[in-house]
């Protein structure tokens, strides 16, 4: 098996997205996980990234204006179906 040298924290923060996307090859993934297991700073970093993703998922879009909504429904009524 190809052993990968120890990763530095500065490298971990650049690999976080690849890790979360599941696109790492297994030796790199093993090195990444080994680093996390012994590094509180990087564990907190990953936690902050995941918290950011979670909060982003709660951002709701603004509602449509009643006027615009009415225009869309009107367009639907006027649409000539084949």
């Amino acid at each position, binding site marked *: 098996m190809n052993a990968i040298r120890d990763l530095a924290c500065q490298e971990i923060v650049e690999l976080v997205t690849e890790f979360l996307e599941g*696109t790492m090859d297994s030796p790199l993934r093993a090195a990444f996980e080994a680093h996390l297991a012994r590094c*509180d*700073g990087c564990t907190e970093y990953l936690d902050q*990234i995941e918290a*950011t993703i*979670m909060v982003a*998922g709660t951002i*709701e879009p603004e509602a*449509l204006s009643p006027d615009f909504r009415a225009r869309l*429904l009107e367009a639907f009524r006027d649409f000539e179906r084949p």
Partner: protein
Amino acid sequence: MLGGRARALSRAYRPATATPIPTDDDAELLRALRAGDEHAFAELVAKYGPSLLRLAQLFVSSRAVAEEVVAETWLAVFTGLERFEGRSSLKTWLFRILTNKAKTRGQRESRTVPFSALAADGDEGETAVDVDRFLGPDSRHPGGWAVPPRGVPEERLLAREVRERIETAIAALPPNQRAVITLRDVEGLSAEEACNVLGLSETNQRVLLHRARSKVRAAFERYLEETE
């Protein structure tokens, strides 16, 4: 760690629309829409209209033009309804139609968002975290944390101000990073769906997502520190 707190929360709070598989609801609504049912259309507008308008606003300069793009999108949906095969989710299909229309509009407005040109966001060579946060090459642990991040107090994650701060940070991103993080993290699309909607390669999508998430995390951390 991997099954950490935020991760558990992220599963718990993911909006229901995040699922990539077409829901039975959508299949039902589409059937009704094909039969010309206006209520089905009203329901689809309520369900996807606000997200479509938000997405359109990433490509064009005014809300009025964004509304026109959304209206054009629905027209294209009426026309192409028979051709929708359900191979992607309805949401992804709608987003792709909208993005194509919005890009055309944006080009006419000469506000082109250069999705294919990755370098165009001017962020090449930038780092996820400020280099000053790490130990230098002469230290015992080069590249280790000099100023490590601190824990996120769980109770703060659901605060409205946190959400607003993250929303502001996303709004400040370069357009292509903003589009990718909006589709992935805000709308909950998969990587494959986001690539499909934006016409990006897998690698470009991931690089843009990485830059976007890194910056938004940094803004989140600054907020946590300011308000401690």
